[in-house]
């Protein structure tokens, strides 16, 4: 289990996965000031939502590489022959994926907050939201990757599968930025994230087993 996490983490770091996600995230976040114009008050108002949208799109980026290549290389066959539970393997994938994109994204959010002129207070709420929401996003990414692994041209489909399911994370994540309803939104965000993290290993395992057939 730990060996698996370490292997996946090393793989995604050495293939530049984290840099790619962070770069894409910052790029999307900078597109908004260009599109909307340098209205500081407006940017500060929508900035938190922009960061959440950018995080969602960036989480989509590595989806194709999470399960498919290992499936083709026979890695899951070898794990199954060694009697490893597929749900545990999927859980290890989720942990490794979160480690490779969650913390880097939270660091990049500080930079993005500077670009969008967010207040320190809003940034703090964004960071708390990301800390709670990104595990759910990682779980969703692994599930999506497993679901589309056996499909030709799965990369194009993965956005259509993942983004609708990520909408609750976006709603409650962005909702937590409003000082008035922050506490309730954070709790609901945590509930959605927990549901995704708890259910994802089993869904992903079933999808991987189906794709192995």
């Amino acid at each position, binding site marked *: 289990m730990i060996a698996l996490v370490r292997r996946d983490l090393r*793989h995604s770091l050495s293939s530049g996965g984290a840099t790619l996600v962070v770069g894409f995230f910052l790029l999307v976040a900078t597109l908004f000031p260009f599109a909307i114009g340098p209205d500081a008050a407006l940017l500060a108002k929508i900035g938190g939502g922009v960061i959440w949208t950018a995080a969602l799109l960036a989480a989509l980026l590595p989806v194709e590489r999470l399960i498919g290549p290992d499936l083709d*290389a*026979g890695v899951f*066959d070898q794990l*199954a*022959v060694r009697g490893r539970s597929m749900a545990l393997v999927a859980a290890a994938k989720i942990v490794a994926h979160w480690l490779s994109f969650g913390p880097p994204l939270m660091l990049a959010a500080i930079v993005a907050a500077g670009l969008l002129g967010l207040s320190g207070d809003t940034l703090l709420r964004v960071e708390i939201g990301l800390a709670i929401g990104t595990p759910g996003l990682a779980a969703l990414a692994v599930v999506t990757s497993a679901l589309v692994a056996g499909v030709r041209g799965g990369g194009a489909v993965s956005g259509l599968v993942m983004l609708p399911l990520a909408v609750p994370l976006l709603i409650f994540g962005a909702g937590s930025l409003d000082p008035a309803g922050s506490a309730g939104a954070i709790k609901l965000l945590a509930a959605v994230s927990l549901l995704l993290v708890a259910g994802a290993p089993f869904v992903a395992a079933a999808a991987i087993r189906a794709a192995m057939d």
Partner: protein
Amino acid sequence: MSLAFRDVACVRGGRMLFSGVSFDLAPGDAATVTGPNGIGKSSLIRIAAGLLPPFEGAVSCDADKALLTEASALDSDRTLVAALRFWASLDRAPNPDARVVQALQALDLEALDGIPVRLLSTGQRRRAAIARIAASEAPVWLLDEPANGLDTHSVARLEALIARHRAGGGIALVATHLPLSMPGAQEIGL
């Protein structure tokens, strides 16, 4: 310890590939699975590995298995020794590092141990995958076309390796369309 098939049938994509396959392998036994392309040799190996459920009949195996398929499952961007160590550390047997060193020696791959897997040739990669099997020390070897891409020298080495595995009380089930010398092996014709 044994590996036994009882009247096993296999259906893939709605088509019956084979049926009524029965055999029994005890420690030291080996069997070759032969037959034309597409008859289900690889499926039989996957059924034996527990990766495919048999359509009919029963498979029993009460020991650890090592599986060799077309996919080598070795991480292409890591060095050969690191890729093998990853799998050895997931095996049940102790001392993964020592087992990997021995397996590399047995397949004459010591000189290549620091080379990234992606730079290995087809034959070298196949030898590396066989080294993963040898390093596992699992009592049951399930080999799907192990001689593919190997030169005559390496085929002889593979035969010696299987003979040594059987002499140590191991079982080998080998699907192959290339002639492999395994004295006393059963033949399962599909």
